[in-house]
């Protein structure tokens, strides 16, 4: 049932990723109103080289992260198909979709966490601040300092709370005790954890509750002062109270950070995000303002998913 639906949609969409639309078109389309369903404009398609330059420049003004024609493979299996997506600065962008639709693979591609997986391969471009993260001159360590990440399972190091937050700074070479103290306090405050832990900064991080551990991981990511924070289902292992704390936090953080969040929880996407991309079987089906996705989806599949008809 689901499969037939899919096939029909693919056939009806000449502008689909597989139809060979150059990446820059999607970028231009995105610039002109963010609507992925708008068909490609004729002149843009005819001269790719100049347009590439043009599109890149144009999207730089709007987008913090600009993804063009991005494919990803695990060995021979292609799991991401021609992803085109512009993620705006200082906004929350949610990635939703059923399990196994490669949202996590996609978000982990942005800071190249997939590099450690053997046999994994990427093609296409992901620009962060206009620089290709997969380009030859890209430095993955530098990239990850600008693009922080919070994982599904909280993963505090078996060290003290203080040392967890200070870790990123210390590997960056910061030794000054006073500076470290300052950043640790600021990061924990931003992660809404300071008041709960200020009296036991040197206690083990493993003694914290699940929700606190996750906020500690957020604080740890913020400590290195990234521009972008990627969150891969940050609240999926937490109870509703801890979840609501994380959501409030995300809402606060978007004033200073560009946030990309993968979530299975559609209410969560609706609550915290400004824009939502709906993924399905490694493709983006629809990408628009969150309100649009939930109130007025253009695609039948999006509607079916957000209203809970499948997934």
């Amino acid at each position, binding site marked *: 049932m689901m499969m037939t639906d899919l096939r029909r949609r693919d056939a009806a969409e000449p502008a689909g990723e597989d139809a060979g639309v150059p990446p820059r078109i999607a970028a231009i389309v995105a610039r002109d109103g963010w609507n992925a369903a708008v068909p490609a404009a004729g002149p843009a398609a005819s001269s790719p080289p100049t347009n590439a330059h043009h599109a890149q420049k144009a999207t730089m003004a709007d987008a913090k992260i600009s993804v063009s024609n991005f494919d990803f493979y695990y060995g021979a299996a292609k799991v991401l198909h021609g992803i085109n997506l512009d993620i705006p600065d200082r906004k929350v962008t949610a990635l939703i979709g059923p399990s196994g639709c490669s949202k996590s693979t996609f978000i982990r591609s942005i800071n190249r966490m997939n590099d450690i997986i*053997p046999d994994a391969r990427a093609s296409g471009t992901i620009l962060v601040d206009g620089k290709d993260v997969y380009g030859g001159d890209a430095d993955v360590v530098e990239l990850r300092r600008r693009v922080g990440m919070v994982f599904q399972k909280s*993963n505090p190091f078996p060290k003290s709370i203080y040392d967890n937050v200070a870790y990123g700074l210390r590997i960056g070479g910061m030794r000054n005790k006073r500076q470290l103290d300052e950043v640790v306090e600021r990061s924990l405050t931003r992660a809404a954890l300071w008041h709960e832990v200020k009296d036991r900064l040197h206690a083990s991080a493993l003694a914290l509750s699940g929700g606190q551990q996750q906020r500690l*991981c957020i604080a740890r990511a913020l400590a290195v002062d990234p521009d972008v924070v990627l969150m891969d289902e940050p609240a999926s292992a937490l109870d509703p109270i801890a979840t609501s704390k994380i959501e409030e936090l995300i809402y606060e953080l978007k004033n200073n950070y560009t946030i990309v969040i993968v979530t299975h929880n559609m209410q969560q996407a609706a609550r915290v995000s400004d824009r939502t991309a709906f993924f399905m079987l490694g493709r983006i089906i629809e990408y628009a303002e969150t309100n649009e996705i939930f109130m007025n989806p253009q695609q039948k599949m999006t509607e079916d998913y957000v209203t809970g008809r499948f997934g």
Partner: protein
Amino acid sequence: MTANLRRRKLFSRFFEILCALAVVIALIPLAMILFYVIKEGAGALSTDFFTKMPKPVGESGGGMANAIVGTLILIGIAALFAVPVGGICGIHLAEYPGTKFSSVVRFAADVLNGVPSIVVGIFAYGILVLPVKRFSAIAGGVALGLLMVPIVVRTTEELIRLVPGGLREGALALGATRSRAVFGVILPAALPGILTGILVALARVAGETAPLLFTAFNNRFWSTNLTQPIASLTVQVFTYAISPYDDWHRQAWAGAFLLVMMILTLSIAARFAVRRLERMNRS
């Protein structure tokens, strides 16, 4: 109840009993060894045993102070040799499990693990005793170290693999280089386990006799000189046990008791360290 079901239940019962029996058979020797060693050894243990030197043949009393110190020196040399080599190999195997080089290293470690200890002793004799024409503590220590290397390699590898993958990702996501992540986060998390693993390996090689017979030899006198023959608990136990004197037999039991207790304590400590890691994995 149908006949078929009755037959199946009987069959199942039969195998349960068979399994229980196998467990009992496996445990009986262990229980008996512990029983005899404790019965004979615990009583023979005294402060003299730890502090006194062996008495001349025919005189009763005395202890194994030189052998205890000798064993400590020997396993000290072994650790100095085996821990850096084995530890770094183990880290490599855990971090780059799929490479061709890794499978060669792993295979080599397994082969080395299977080499009889007497062969390792002959090897150490050939390269460290024959050229200088003298038994030495160094030769004995290196022989024990060679036996230790494969155990340290596999322990390190397995314990690093037990560290939750999330810790590695967390460190990398903060901009740590791979070596930074390994030495700053992963290794410290695995360290209590690796350390106890090393202690267990030490306890195991401390129980080796054969490779010491023609490397460290033995020494009836107090010696801490690394280039001279040195006494060890195991060789002393061996010498005393095959002697015709009751007092020496008593002391041999005490030595055996000491060795067994050492291994038992360290094995229990190792279990706790591993359990701690497993808990971290689950949470």
